[in-house]
């Protein structure tokens, strides 16, 4: 999977676990928390979805790497099996 495809998948998963977030409104460089009040429950649900769909088990200590779409894609790109 190339980076653009990965970014699309991640955005899709994000809006699945947060259906009240409009996909087109997500700004890749800004933390989810600052854009739409992403909280620890959202982060956990997001990590569960990433594990289920992409096979990456993000340890809790790396949750900061999932803070924005850009950070997420960079992190997952090197962590993907």
């Amino acid at each position, binding site marked *: 999977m190339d980076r653009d495809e990965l970014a699309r998948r991640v955005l899709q998963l994000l809006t699945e*676990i*947060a*259906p*009240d*977030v409009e996909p087109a409104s997500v700004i890749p460089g800004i933390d989810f*928390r600052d854009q*739409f*009040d992403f*909280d*620890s*429950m959202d982060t*956990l*649900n997001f*990590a*569960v979805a990433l*594990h289920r769909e992409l096979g990456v*088990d*993000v*340890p*809790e*200590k790396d949750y900061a790497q999932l803070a924005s779409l850009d950070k997420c894609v960079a992190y997952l790109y090197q962590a993907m099996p």
Partner: protein
Amino acid sequence: MRAAIAAAMSRSKREIPHYYLATTVDVTGTVEWLAARNASVPVTQRLLFAALVVKAVALGCRELKGFSGFHREGRYEDSDTVHVGVAVALRGGGLVAPAIMDTADKPLNVLMEEFRDLVARARAGRLRASELSAPTIIVTSLGDSPVDTVFPIIQPPQVAIVGAGAIAERPWVVAGQVVPRQVLGLSLGADHRVTDGRLGARFLARIAERLLDPGSL
């Protein structure tokens, strides 16, 4: 949504003689316990600290009467079973507090699974009316916000609400030495028609004791 919250909170402030208590708890050991536990299980089985608070409150309600129940038509009735409501902030504003049913009887992993499901459905607008009317007490956690202590407002006809602030590293005295510790601001809003500060303090202390012994949850 805003009008419904305003109506419920206005009624609460008009009818319920609130008293508020707060304490700060050194939860360093519990935070470490949780991190170690979460590192040893798959992501689907990880717990949030808030789940520990919810369970500790449920167990506290079972030990002390006067905090989990309904005050209706001039009299209070303690509930036989504890259904802890969890306050969920909605994006774009608003707040709902659906119940985790029979909270005290659920193992942490089951409780956490239901907690996750409730938050997801709350934000997708797919809660059942019965889930919103069931809570016998509510836990409101502002753990993701820069808040030390919540001064929570009771949702009638309930008679108590427990607040949890953010866990923060603070200077703390342990065995005569000032050391950095992870502390949590735990608070209670309760109804003077039913209980007094002394019982409220015992209730808060029971919750704190449970939190400090996560194996008991």
